């Protein structure tokens, strides 16, 4: 059974998540879907299974045009999906998770003995020799992924969608998963595989499709595309207009005194390995790496959004505890999350309220920001960041992504920070706003602000940063001094180097 998607567009308020994407999945192949965060991989899968309605385009399954109403509907048509987070019930047994909805019935309701026996055969088909009566939660995530797949086998799927199933598996677990995938492929099942581990992509897939910013970048056989080319296609090169900002990497940074921030062996088990990082006043430190390399995780640990279980942080030379955002705010550290909607904006509040929130939180609830100060902040940043529409009373959720991002920047700048951590500040916003934000970051650094800058667009990182830390597989693999004019290709090479993962 084959799946053909043509001209698929999906739009969310303010974002074009998919823009006329074509995609074809043939039976008996493992087809990888690649792209950075926000490229549209998950959206494409959800469009296929009917979780999101499509705004235009058509979906053909086995030659017939189909529209599904949801995962369950797609499943009954033979398309089974296994998501990144295991979508099983941890409170039930393994056997139930495999068989629920397809149990064997006896005279007195469910015949558990027969049901578990069938579950055992399905599990062993995938090479899993585990007790179906054991609780799901007693197994590792890898086994749970395989259990989820055997559930797909029970419903006799012809198309199997695996959305980042390997993100938390170790090597031996991945091998097991791959063995199962190969066996299913040989049974002529069409498999769609999403992963951000390139080694795995090259190892398992027959074909790949690359998405970037909601657009199709191309479809290739695995042999056709070398790894650096692939990375370049995923990360993309910017449009020429942005180059006018110029490169600020040559700026000389005074690195003799205490750094604004010194991170020593900061780490968290299962999230990132302990690593060091220094940021000096006026310096932009770029974090480069693919999604899942630990770049976001590091930023969150520094800010105290997540709690580190290892290492120390020094601010201006003195060791400090930054275990909650509150502490960081007091030490004038600001953090703008990559997830603007869920972790940035307060959607139902106005632009002005969102802008003043950082200052207000710092002052506490009792001392309201005086009206004059508030107006001054709002006026200053509405103009200097050119926020549109220029209406401080508009609800922030009605603004475009770029303008929301600028309001969030204003929120932090108003608190007069010494260090600004920006995680993907330019994702999903239009070119104009992107250029403005880049220029702003560069100017702020020149005025003495320390900046940690994270972006999946390497050009951006290379142009803005004076130093670049390259991350791969939760490790720091390189610390590059950008005065020597680091090239994007150098970083790509570092990221692409085959790791031990």
């Amino acid at each position, binding site marked *: 059974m084959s799946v053909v998607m043509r001209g698929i567009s999906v739009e969310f308020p303010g974002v074009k998540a998919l823009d006329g994407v074509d995609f074809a999945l043939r039976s008996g192949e493992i087809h990888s879907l690649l792209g950075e965060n926000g490229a549209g991989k998950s959206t494409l899968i959800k469009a296929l299974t009917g979780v999101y309605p499509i705004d235009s385009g058509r979906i053909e399954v086995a030659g017939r045009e189909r529209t599904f109403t949801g995962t369950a509907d797609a499943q009954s048509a033979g398309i089974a999906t296994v998501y990144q987070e295991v*979508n099983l019930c941890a*409170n039930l047994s393994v056997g139930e998770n495999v068989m*629920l*909805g397809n149990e064997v019935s006896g005279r007195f309701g469910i015949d558990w003995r027969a049901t578990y026996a069938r579950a055992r055969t399905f599990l062993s088909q995938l090479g899993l020799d585990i007790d179906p009566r*054991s609780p799901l939660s*007693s197994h590792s995530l890898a086994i749970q992924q395989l259990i989820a797949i055997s559930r797909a086998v029970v419903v006799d799927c012809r198309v199997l969608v695996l959305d980042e199933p390997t993100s*938390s598996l170790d090597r031996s677990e991945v091998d097991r998963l791959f063995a199962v995938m190969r066996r299913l492929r040989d049974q002529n099942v069409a498999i769609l595989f999403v992963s951000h581990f390139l080694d795995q992509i090259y190892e398992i897939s027959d074909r790949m499709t690359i998405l970037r910013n909601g657009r199709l970048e191309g479809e290739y056989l695995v042999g056709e595309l070398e790894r650096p080319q692939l990375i370049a296609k995923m990360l993309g090169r910017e449009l020429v207009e942005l180059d006018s900002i110029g490169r600020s990497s040559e700026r000389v940074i005074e690195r003799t005194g205490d750094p604004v921030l010194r991170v020593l062996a900061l780490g968290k*088990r299962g999230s990132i390995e302990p690593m060091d990082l220094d940021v000096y006043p006026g310096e932009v430190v770029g974090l480069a790496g693919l999604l899942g390399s630990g770049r976001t995780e590091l930023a969150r640990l520094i800010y105290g959004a997540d709690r580190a279980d290892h290492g120390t942080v020094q601010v201006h030379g003195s060791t400090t505890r930054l275990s909650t955002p509150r502490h960081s705010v007091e030490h004038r550290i600001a953090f703008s999350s990559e997830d603007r909607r869920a972790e940035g904006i307060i959607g139902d509040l106005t632009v002005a309220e969102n802008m003043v929130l950082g200052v207000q939180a710092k002052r506490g609830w009792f001392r309201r920001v005086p009206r004059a100060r508030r107006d001054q902040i709002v006026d200053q940043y509405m103009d200097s960041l050119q926020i549109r529409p220029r209406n401080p009373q508009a609800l922030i959720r009605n603004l475009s992504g770029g303008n929301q991002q600028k309001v969030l920047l204003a929120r932090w700048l108003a608190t007069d920070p010494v260090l600004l951590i920006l995680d993907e500040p330019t994702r999903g916003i239009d070119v104009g706003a992107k250029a403005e934000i880049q220029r702003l970051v560069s100017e702020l650094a020149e005025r003495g602000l320390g900046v940690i800058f994270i972006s999946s667009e390497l050009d951006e990182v290379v142009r803005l940063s004076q130093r670049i830390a390259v991350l791969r597989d939760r490790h720091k693999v390189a610390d590059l001094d950008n005065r020597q004019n680091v090239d994007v290709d150098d970083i790509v090479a570092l990221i692409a180097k085959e790791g031990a993962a």
Partner: protein
Amino acid sequence: MTALTETERPAPTISRWRHFLVGKVAWMPVLAAVVILVIMLVAGQAYFGRFVTPRILSSLFVDNAYLIVLAAGMTFVILTGGIDLSVGAVMAFTGMLAAKLMSTGVPAPVVIPLMLIAGAAFGLIIGVMVHYFDVQPFIASLAGMFLARGLCFVVSLEAIQVKNPLVLGLQSVKINMGDWYVTPTVIIALLLVVGATWVLGYTRFGRTVYAVGGNEQSARLMGLHVARTKVLVYVVSGVCAGIAGLLFTAYTAAGYSLNGIGTELDTIAAVVIGGTLLTGGSGYLIGSLVGVLVYGVIKVSITFLGADASWTRITIGILLLAFVVVQRVIVARANRR
């Protein structure tokens, strides 16, 4: 993320032990409730002397038959992660309705099914509001509670005597076995517990209840009938409230609008003390039965002590709080792992 730390143990014996323990983890709270029950009985015996006697133990069941039924229904709802605050009021309403109908000469065999249908109707309204209109369960069931309570007074402002021999017989017929005795109300309640246990353990609906409570999103993605199940648990609870209305009417020999005020709280407390997680997905019906017995023993002990009856609610409140806090700690620890 945290799963990286979880590696497969090479030694099979250890892993088997772990499997055994993990498999029984859901039973631990039930066990805790049993232990508390036993401790209370032993303490009562030690303090009062003649406390653990067949008479008193029998009366535990007889006096709380209606609560056992309510707790059984509530267990379904809480297992899905919902809550039903309407049960006390629905019980009172069905009792009132029955008393009124019977006083006008409608025969009991007609009245009793009507009680169940009335209970089911309330459950259906609440369930539809919860599932299809995304109203939070406690608001929907609170509305159901007020609706039922108000309708009681529409039926009658005064208490209505019940003289129907069939209904009264449910309570007055005593089947003696030595010093032990049971009434038909107890038999109905226990049969219901057995039946409900079977439904939860051996039907697709029952397993879906657990699946929804464990992870509603997953259950939906697994293609289970989440909508139907979520509505149906409130209907089950409503029907149970109808049956409880029958038992309570038999017990008090009257329908009265103020019957069962606060019963919803007792019921929730019993279910939680019996080891069902308020977040849903984990718990057993037998635990709820034990929870009701714990409630019963507290009530009897306070009568024995000659203390003010209000201590019952306070003790139950404290016990409920203790269990909720412990549950919270367990869940928090599980998440951290």
